[in-house]
C-alpha cells in the first residue's frame, strides 16, 4: 500500500512503484524504508555532492493519518558533512500533504540541468523552474510558491541560500523553522539543483478500519494529554532541557571545556524567554502539545523580528557553549539559520569550535576576515553565520564541513571538535548518563540524541517502572553502567519505530512513561493496515532498521574504533553537583561489549551472519 516515485532530475522523468505489503511488514515506512532503499542505491564510492547520491524522502506509515503527532517525514542520503549515513526528519505539515498528493516515498536521483522545484499534486509530479527563487530566503520561497500556484494550503520543504551555495551542513526547512536539520541533507538538495518540494493533496488515505481508528485516536488523545510530562512539554517544549542541564551541571560550556558555566546564564532560563519574547504556541500536524514557541523581539537592534523557535539545541549551542547570555543574539542567530537553511546543530558546534581555536591562538583575525571571536561576542555569533553563507573569511572553510576545515587549518585543530563519526555532539554533556553516552558513541548517523539517547535516564525511574516499561529492569542511577546496554537498545527500537511510523518522539515513551509506546503503535497500525503485530515483531522491525543502518556504516569501514565518546569524557567534571564524574574506560568497553552482544554483533561491532539471517539481511544489496 502506498507509492514510491523514482524521480530522475536530469531527464525529468518519474517511475512509480507500489510499496508491497512485504516491504511494509519488514520496514514499515519513513526512516525504515528510506534506509532500506538508500543502502541499496549508494556505496562507498558515492560522492555525497555528486549526481549519483540519492536523496530518499519518506513519510511514515502513519504520517497524515488521524492520530497523535503523525507529522514526521524523513530525508536520507549519503551525508556531505560526514561522508557516512545522512538522515534527518522534520515535523510540521509537509509529510501529510505529500501522502495526500499520492506519494509515500520519493527516490530523487541525478542532478537537474537548472534549478527546479518539484510540484506534487493529484498523483502527479511536475518539474517547475526555480530560477526566480534565487534571491529568496526559505520563508519567502514558500510564500512565493503558494502565490505562483494559487493555493494557500500548499506545503513546501525547501533549501535556502545555504543549500544553494553548497554549504555541506545546509538543512531543509519547512514553515518558519521545521527542519530536517542534521547531516547536511540541504547540501544534497543543493547539489542536485533541487531547491524545493511542494505538495498539496486531496486524496483520502486508505484506512482498514476507520471506526477502530477513531476510537484508538480518541483514547490516545486522552492518554497523552493526561500524562505527567505533557503539561511541561506544552509550556516549555525542548527548552526544559535548558533549565535542567544548567541547574544539574551537565551543560556544555565554552566548547565543552566546562560542564557548568558562570556567564550570566540565569538570563537563559525558559521562564525568562516565555515572559519577554513568546507570543504564541505553534504545533505540528496532529499534535495537541504545541511545544513550539512563536516569538517577537520587542526592543533593541532586532526589534520587531519574529520567528518560531528556538529549540534547546540553539539555546545551549549559542548560550553556554559560546558564553553568550543574550536572548536577542540567540534569537537572531536562530532566525538567520531558519531563513538561510543552515543546521543549528552544526552551526553552533562550529561556532564554539572556532571560538576555542581563536582563544588558543590557533586561528586569528587574519583567518576570520577581521572578525574577533571572543567568547560571548554577538558580533562573532552573527558574523560567523554570514561568513558561512557568503563563503568568506573562516566561513569559506566552515562551509566545506568541519573535517575539511580542520585539514585546512591544521595545527591539531581537529582535537578541539567533539564529535562522533564526524557529527558534532550536542550542547549538553552526557558523560554522567551511561546509557546516553553509549547511545552517543553508537548512533548510526553519528553523535545524535534522537536515535538512541535514553532520555528517561535523567528521571531516575525505579527498577519496577523500567521493568514494566522495557521488559527488563534498568538501574535507577544514571552513573551505573550495568544494564545500560538494554536501555540503549530499547531506545534504538522505539526511535526506529517512531521514525518509521512518522510519529513525533516527543509524544512517545522516549520522553515520558505515560505517552505512546509499542502497545499504542500496534493499535494504530492494526486500525490503519489490518495487520496486528506482536511486541516481538515490533522489536524485530526496529532491530532490522537499525542493523541496516549499521551495515551502511560497516560498508564505509566503521567498526568498534569509531564507537567512542569524545576524549574529554574520560576526564572528570570540574563543577556542579556531580563534579568528579567521568567515563571509566574499562567500564565503558565492557558496556560496549554487552551492547554488541545484545545486537548479535561481533566484538568489533560488525553484525554476525546469523544475526543478519534472522533479520533477512544476509543477502548483499543490489546496487
Amino acid at each position, binding site marked *: 500500500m502506498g507509492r514510491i516515485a523514482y524521480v530522475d532530475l536530469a531527464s525529468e522523468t518519474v517511475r512509480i512503484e507500489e510499496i508491497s505489503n512485504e516491504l511494509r511488514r519488514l520496514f514499515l515506512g519513513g526512516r525504515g524504508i528510506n534506509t532500506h532503499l538508500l543502502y541499496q542505491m549508494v556505496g562507498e564510492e558515492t560522492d555525497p555532492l555528486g549526481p549519483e547520491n540519492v536523496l530518499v524522502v519518506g513519510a511514515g506509515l502513519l504520517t497524515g493519518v488521524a492520530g497523535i503527532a503523525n507529522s514526521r517525514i524523513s530525508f536520507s542520503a549519503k551525508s556531505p558533512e560526514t561522508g557516512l549515513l545522512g538522515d534527518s526528519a522534520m515535523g510540521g505539515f509537509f509529510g501529510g500533504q505529500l501522502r495526500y498528493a499520492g506519494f509515500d516515498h520519493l527516490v530523487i536521483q541525478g542532478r537537474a540541468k537548472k534549478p527546479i522545484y518539484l510540484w506534487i499534486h493529484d498523483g502527479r509530479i511536475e518539474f517547475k523552474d526555480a530560477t526566480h527563487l534565487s534571491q529568496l530566503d526559505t520563508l519567502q520561497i514558500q510564500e512565493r510558491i503558494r502565490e505562483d500556484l494559487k493555493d494557500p494550503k500548499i506545503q513546501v520543504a525547501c533549501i535556502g541560500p545555504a543549500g544553494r551555495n553548497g554549504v555541506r551542513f545546509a538543512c531543509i526547512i519547512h514553515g518558519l523553522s521545521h527542519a530536517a536539520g542534521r547531516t547536511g541533507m540541504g547540501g544534497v538538495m543543493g547539489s542536485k539543483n533541487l531547491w524545493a518540494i511542494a505538495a498539496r493533496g486531496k486524496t483520502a488515505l486508505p*484506512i482498514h478500519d*476507520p471506526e477502530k481508528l477513531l476510537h484508538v485516536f480518541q483514547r490516545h488523545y486522552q492518554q497523552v494529554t493526561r500524562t505527567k510530562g505533557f503539561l511541561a512539554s506544552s509550556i516549555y517544549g525542548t527548552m526544559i532541557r535548558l533549565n535542567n542541564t544548567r541547574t544539574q551541571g551537565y551543560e556544555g560550556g565554552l566548547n565543552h571545556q566546562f560542564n557548568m558555566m558562570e556567564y550570566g546564564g540565569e538570563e537563559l532560563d525558559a521562564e525568562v524567554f516565555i515572559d519577554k519574547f513568546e507570543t504564541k504556541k505553534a504545533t505540528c500536524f496532529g499534535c495537541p502539545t504545541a511545544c513550539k514557541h512563536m516569538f517577537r523581539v520587542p526592543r533593541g537592534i532586532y526589534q520587531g523580528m519574529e520567528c518560531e523557535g528556538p529549540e534547546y539545541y540553539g539555546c545551549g549551542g549559542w548560550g553556554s557553549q559560546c558564553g553568550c547570555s543574550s536572548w536577542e543574539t540567540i534569537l537572531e542567530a536562530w532566525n538567520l539559520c531558519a531563513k538561510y537553511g543552515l543546521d543549528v546543530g552544526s552551526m553552533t558546534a562550529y561556532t564554539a569550535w572556532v571560538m576555542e581555536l581563536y582563544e588558543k591562538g590557533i586561528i586569528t583575525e587574519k583567518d576570520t576576515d577581521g572578525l574577533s571571536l571572543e567568547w560571548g561576542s554577538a558580533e562573532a555569533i552573527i558574523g560567523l553565520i554570514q561568513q558561512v553563507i557568503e563563503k568568506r573569511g573562516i566561513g569559506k572553510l566552515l562551509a566545506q564541513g568541519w573535517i575539511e576545515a580542520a585539514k585546512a587549518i591544521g595545527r591539531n585543530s581537529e582535537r578541539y571538535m567533539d564529535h562522533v563519526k564526524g557529527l558534532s555532539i550536542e550542547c549538553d554533556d552526557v558523560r554522567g548518563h551511561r546509557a546516553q553516552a553509549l547511545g552517543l558513541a553508537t548512533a548510526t548517523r553519528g553523535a545524535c540524541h534522537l536515535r538512541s539517547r535514553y532520555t528517561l535516564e535523567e528521571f531516575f525511574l525505579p527498577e519496577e517502572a523500567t521493568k514494566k516499561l522495557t521488559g527488563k529492569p534498568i538501574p535507577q542511577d544514571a552513573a551505573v553502567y550495568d544494564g545500560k546496554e538494554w536501555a540503549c537498545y530499547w531506545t534504538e527500537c522505539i526511535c526506529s519505530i517512531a521514525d518509521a511510523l512518522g510519529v513525533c518522539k516527543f509524544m512517545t515513551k522516549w520522553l515520558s512513561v505515560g505517552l505512546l509506546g509499542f502497545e499504542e503503535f500496534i493499535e494504530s497500525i492494526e486500525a490503519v493496515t489490518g495487520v496486528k503485530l506482536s511486541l516481538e515483531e515490533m522489536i524485530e522491525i526496529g532491530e532490522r532498521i537499525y542493523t541496516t543502518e549499521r551495515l551502511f556504516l560497516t560498508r564505509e569501514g566503521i567498526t568498534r574504533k569509531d564507537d567512542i565518546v569524545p576524549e574529554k569524557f574520560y576526564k572528570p567534571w570540574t563543577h556542579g553537583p556531580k563534579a568528579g564524574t567521568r567515563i571509566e574506560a574499562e567500564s565503558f568497553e565492557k558496556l560496549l561489549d554487552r551492547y554488541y552482544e545484545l545486537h548479535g554483533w561481533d566484538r568489533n561491532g560488525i553484525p554476525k551472519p546469523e544475526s543478519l539471517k534472522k533479520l533477512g539481511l544476509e543477502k548483499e544489496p543490489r546496487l
Partner: protein
Amino acid sequence: MKIASEKCTGCRLCESVCSLFHDKKMDLTFSRIQIDPSSENHYRVRVCLQCEDCPPSEVCPTGAFQWNKATGGVKILEEECNLCGLCIPECPYSSVFEGDGSVLVCDLCDDRPKCVEVCQKQAIQFA
C-alpha cells in the same frame, strides 16, 4: 459552537476526527470544520455557529437544510438535498462547504461535537 481563531494552532485534530467520524475516511478536504492558514502559524476556523438567524436554511428550496431540535444544530437531509448549492454563499461565516456529491455543514455529530474533545487549546468550544 464558539470559536477563538487566535487560539488555533492548526493541528488539524478537529478536521481529522470530523472526517473519520462522518465519512469513515482519512480526508481532511471534506471536514465540516475547516482550518484555513492566514499566515505561518495563524489560522481562521470555519465551522457552523448555529446562528439563530440562519440564511442558508432560509434559501433552501427543498427544505433539506434544517434545524435539528434535538441537538440545537443544523443538518442537511441528504435525501432531500438537490445539490443546488444556493445555501453555500449565504452563510456569513462561510461554513457551509461543497462536498463530493454533497453539501456539508457541521451537525454537532448528532450529539456532542467530537472536534471540541480534541481541541487542546480550546479554540473551539461547545456550551
